[in-house]
């Protein structure tokens, strides 16, 4: 089981590397998909299965779909994939930085962040985050309203920034 979680972690980093090495968006989105799938698996291994499901649905089913639609409208004549030298250079640079960080810092020994802890909460782990969602809608409704307003505000801000065809912030360059 431990090896499976480590495998998930390695694939997560590889997915993030695939995105961060700046290929064209068509190839970068593959990295995003891989990273989010591995991240969801990681969350399940920690015991919060409902949050993992919510992340899957919203991220892959919502945000990535919108991203793919908008990217398909702005086509690149010569998209850079992972075979091009520029992308390979970025990838090697990031690998080097992370390797240095791990070698110099160490992970658990230096930071003493500790191992995965589990609070008792019932027979199965899945109950913990269900009850969290219930609290969010009942006692914690203040935070629910604040979070909802924050999301709505993000929408309004984006609309305000791109308002006006050539007068807006995103002009046709």
């Amino acid at each position, binding site marked *: 089981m431990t090896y499976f979680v480590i495998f998930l972690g390695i694939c997560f980093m590889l997915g993030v590397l695939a995105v961060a090495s700046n290929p064209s968006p068509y190839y970068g989105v593959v990295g995003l998909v891989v990273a989010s799938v591995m991240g969801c698996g990681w969350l399940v291994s920690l015991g919060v299965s409902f949050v993992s499901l919510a992340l899957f649905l919203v991220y892959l089913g919502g945000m990535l779909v919108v991203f793919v639609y908008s990217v398909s409208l702005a086509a690149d004549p010569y998209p850079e994939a992972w075979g091009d030298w520029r992308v390979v250079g970025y990838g090697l640079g990031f690998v080097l930085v992370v390797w240095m960080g791990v070698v110099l810092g160490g992970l658990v020994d230096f930071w003493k*962040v500790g191992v995965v802890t589990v609070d008792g909460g019932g027979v199965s782990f899945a109950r913990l985050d269900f009850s969290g969602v219930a609290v969010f809608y009942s006692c914690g409704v203040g935070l629910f309203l604040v979070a909802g307003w924050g999301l709505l505000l*993000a929408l309004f801000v984006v609309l*305000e*920034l791109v308002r*006006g065809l050539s007068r807006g912030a995103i002009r046709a360059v």
Partner: protein
Amino acid sequence: MNPHAKLICTVSLIMGTSITISSNHWILAWTGLEINTLAIIPLISKSHHPRAIEATIKYFLTQSTASALILFSSMTNAWSTGQWDITQLNHPTSCLMLTMAIAIKLGLVPFHFWFPEVLQGSSLITALLLSTLMKLPPITLLLLTSQSLNTTLLTLLAISSTLIGGWMGLNQTQTRKILAFSSISHLGWMIMIISYNPQLTILTFILYTIMTSTVFLSLAQIKVLKLSTLLISWTKTPMLNATVMLTLLSLAGLPPLTGFMPKWLIIQELTKQEMTPMATIITMLSLLSLFFYLRLAYHSTITLPPNSSNHMKLWRTNKTLNTPTAILTALSTTLLPLSPLIITML
């Protein structure tokens, strides 16, 4: 700007600030900071000039990085201590990361590079909001955690902020950039004293807000964006130029004006804490900023600019009544005799 968008942005700014300064939980504090960042983005970019758009992007990127660091620091602390209370930040990595994150948010050296350019890209009133209202939530978080933070690091940030704020402001001709560097150097004074007497930080912040608001509002009334415009603005409202001079000297910290009060009390507290060399250094470094305040004051009150004589008299006047500026000017020049009362209120 569209009135509905402006209303949503203004309400969200007030809401975000209130949420952060009244929160006990890190997640709520972070939410308030994010709402503030989102809400001020359209206000910075409202003129749709490329410089304004660049300023917006710079502001967004730096503030988002800082918010992510705040989230990391609170999560590390929650992982190791099991609680999310803002005042109980005990993990050393969390304290370090939080100090750096707040330094980025406030614009302390060495994370100050975004601040003058963002202020230059926004209008004068938006620059006022960025210098005063947007500094309140991060300073609140720093005040709440000030007992756990590393004193040496805070002192280092403070001295270098005062140094860079004074030194870099010397070669500026644009008033918004000058006020940006003045803000950086005042923040240095605030951070200097936060480990020893956080009440003095609150006092410095309130007085700095009053004085900076006065300057920004006065400059907005005469629409002065650079030194050369300040030179010939006395014909529009001569009285306002005189009060701008007094307010600038108050910002510089000269007695008998209000701005002397925080500096005096901070030097007294530092001396009591056996930090006399630091007190001397920070006072000497404020002399650098005194130079550009004096230059601004000189430009605002000079009545013989190098113009021909038919430019001296302005017969088309557009004098609007501006009560907030008047009240703030009175506060920012005459509060020093009330210092005994204010000290007992701390």
